[in-house]
């Protein structure tokens, strides 16, 4: 593939953002090296638990005491269970320094966290891209919805997104496959909210699952989602989108991809005479030997905090504080999503209906606070999920034969369990930051990352508003036994950390331009969550996949013109 380790392009990170860059680059004829610090995970072959039924699992899905002891951080993740824990890093092998409590949840393997993700995908609108400029925080995004619209469509058409066209300006419609059926209580709550509120909507949760077959999916070798709801194990049908089933095989079949797992990127090589990046230094994860690879263009998509780490570690005479860091802002303005608030209740209004089968999504409430004008004492707002399921009771109070009578006769109670969880936008600020430790290093000789990120007063007020507004909405629906809860999740536990290498118009207040090029080193692109100037409320993956596809095509055009 390469002569003297030289390629047309290098992509750091084989997750969603890096996978998209690799796909676009290789499809357009560029010899591309895709580096992944973890092991390879081949679709189908490396999903060891995907066919296990509950009774076939040693602990029936539970974690052992040793799992929790060895992985105090990862074990706080909802997906870290017996069936998927092998896709998470071992905490003790990948230390970092928490200045304040931060759950850094990582999946170091080809495919990254796309194997275990929740598959919820929503487009951003201009209410999101214009947010910082309108509301006076962070810096103005250098792009708007129109710059990404076609790329959203490209990504949706390729990965497959199930959704409903809702016609909302706050949440643009996409190119959707048909939605799953909704249940009666989801429909009921949607109707109640529609009747009582002009600007609030309860809609189908758009998700990256195949509900229809199309030629592109057949070409990818993927089949329809079978509603198993154990996606975190990897899917034998390819029914949901992950990088392993889709982007990697697609890029490999071009003949232009060289995939190298077990490759820990230490730093980017900057040539001071050429005034450009020329390659990357890689430490072999297993042998600890260092190798250098070279390319005309480099995409850094190692997942938000690792991308920050790599750039911070890429020091030179020209960039003593990290690659492209003339502004001094690299590593600052880290943000995330506030997932702390939940509300639960019981619904008694559909006693004679239940559901059958399964679906991998529930309903979604797009942001309705501070959308058209500032109306609260906190900035921005929150989206929320909404789920409803019939309650079936199995009596387990007795012992002996009397217990068996109860176990053999589970009864639907006529009640439904309903609940919502908030997804709040946090405001990026300089004090939420990461930086390299001066003395402590990991086993590959790379400085440990200090993480200093926390909630603030805006987050607390937003959560209280979520409690109040959703309690009101639930009361209007006649839901009973309403309880609200602050689950006190640490920042990072949302697994939506973003920022540190933000996009912007001004090189003095941002690191990346409108094409995701480092202002001061334009042959380096950053397209994962690190590039996000603000967080909005929507799940970020679809947006940085679209950003990656757009940026990759920009790089391709620039290379063709000899401008990189």
């Amino acid at each position: 593939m390469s002569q003297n380790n030289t390629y047309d392009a290098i992509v750091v990170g084989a997750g969603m953002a890096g996978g998209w860059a690799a796909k676009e680059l290789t499809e357009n004829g560029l010899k591309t090296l895709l580096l992944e610090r973890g092991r390879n995970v081949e679709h189908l072959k490396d999903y060891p638990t995907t066919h296990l039924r509950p009774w076939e699992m040693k602990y029936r899905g539970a974690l052992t005491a040793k799992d929790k002891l060895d992985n105090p951080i990862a074990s706080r993740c909802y997906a870290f269970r017996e069936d998927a824990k092998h896709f998470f890093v071992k905490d003790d092998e990948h230390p970092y320094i928490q200045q304040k409590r931060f759950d850094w949840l990582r999946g170091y393997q080809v495919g990254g966290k796309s194997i275990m993700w929740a598959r919820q995908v929503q487009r951003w609108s201009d209410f999101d891209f214009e947010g910082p400029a309108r509301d006076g925080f962070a810096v103005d995004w250098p792009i708007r919805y129109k710059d990404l619209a076609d790329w959203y469509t490209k990504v949706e058409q390729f990965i497959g997104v199930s959704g409903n066209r809702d016609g909302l300006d706050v949440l643009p419609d996409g190119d959707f496959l048909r939605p799953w059926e909704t249940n009666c209580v989801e429909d009921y709550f949607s109707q109640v909210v529609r009747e009582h509120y002009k600007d609030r909507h309860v809609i189908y949760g758009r998700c990256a699952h195949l509900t229809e077959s199309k030629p592109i999916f057949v070409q990818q070798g993927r089949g329809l989602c079978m509603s198993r709801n154990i996606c975190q194990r990897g899917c034998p049908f390819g029914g949901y989108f992950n990088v392993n089933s889709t982007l990697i095989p697609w890029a490999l079949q071009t003949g232009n991809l060289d995939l190298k797992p077990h490759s820990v990127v230490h730093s980017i090589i900057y040539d001071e005479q050429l005034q450009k990046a020329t390659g990357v230094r890689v430490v072999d994860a297993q042998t600890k030997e260092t190798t250098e690879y070279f390319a005309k263009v480099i995409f850094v998509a190692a997942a938000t905090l690792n991308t920050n780490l790599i750039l911070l570690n890429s020091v030179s005479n020209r960039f003593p504080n990290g690659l492209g860091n003339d502004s001094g802002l690299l590593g600052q303005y880290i943000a995330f999503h506030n997932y702390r608030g939940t509300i639960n209740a019981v619904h008694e209004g559909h006693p004679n209906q239940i559901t059958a089968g399964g679906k991998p999504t529930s309903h979604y409430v797009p942001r309705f606070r501070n959308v058209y004008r500032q109306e609260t004492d906190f900035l921005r707002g929150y989206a929320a999920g909404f789920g409803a399921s019939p309650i079936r009771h199995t009596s387990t109070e007795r012992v002996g034969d009397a217990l068996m009578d109860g176990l053999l006769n589970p009864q639907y109670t006529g009640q439904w369990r309903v609940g919502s969880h908030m997804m709040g936008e946090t405001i990026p600020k300089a004090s939420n930051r990461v930086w390299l430790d001066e003395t402590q290093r990991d086993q590959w000789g790379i400085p440990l990352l200090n993480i200093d990120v926390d909630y603030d007063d805006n987050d607390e007020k937003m959560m209280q508003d979520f409690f109040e507004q959703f309690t009101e909405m639930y009361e209007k629906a006649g839901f009973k036994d309403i309880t609200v809860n602050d689950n006190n999740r640490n920042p990072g536990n949302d697994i939506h950390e973003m920022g540190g290498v933000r996009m912007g118009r001004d090189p003095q207040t941002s690191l990346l331009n409108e094409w995701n090029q480092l202002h001061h080193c334009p042959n380096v692109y950053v397209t994962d969550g690190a590039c996000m100037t603000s967080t909005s409320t929507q799940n970020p993956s679809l947006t940085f996949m679209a950003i990656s596809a757009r940026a990759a095509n920009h790089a391709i055009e620039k290379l063709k013109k000899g401008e990189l």
Partner: protein
Amino acid sequence: MKRRKALATIVWGTGALAALPYCTTNPYAIFDHLPFSLEEMEAIIALSKDMVPEYTDSFPTPEERAIFLLRMLNDLLTPQEQQTFAEGVKAFLKENPSFFKLSISEKESILMAGLAAENSALLTIKRFSLRHLMTTQAYMENIQQYEFIPGRYDGCVAVN
């Protein structure tokens, strides 16, 4: 050569014989984290079956109840939790020295009182025992209508 082989056979056979008493006296020796005697382990297993009958004909299990229960106690509980559990079991057996000689109804009465008083050892045994039974293929598929590959979602179905 034949003499060497004969000597090796004797050595291996002697070693196997030496190990045999240990194996036959404690079939659960692999659960080496548990702070119980063999007698206490057998009592835990018996309590499990008294609380949650096995019904293995109707609900066959991939492993014996004893193995599953002890594995869960061994691997899912922290050392402190195991110690607390062990103390709870010892206290129960001390309070009820003739428990296993009682009639079924007498035993169930004592067990229900213990559970109502939130005896954590009894609650733990029952929890894991229920998990063993309720995650069997027969229970999940026939009683809970569990489907591994539903392939559909029906959002509004009339209750039968």
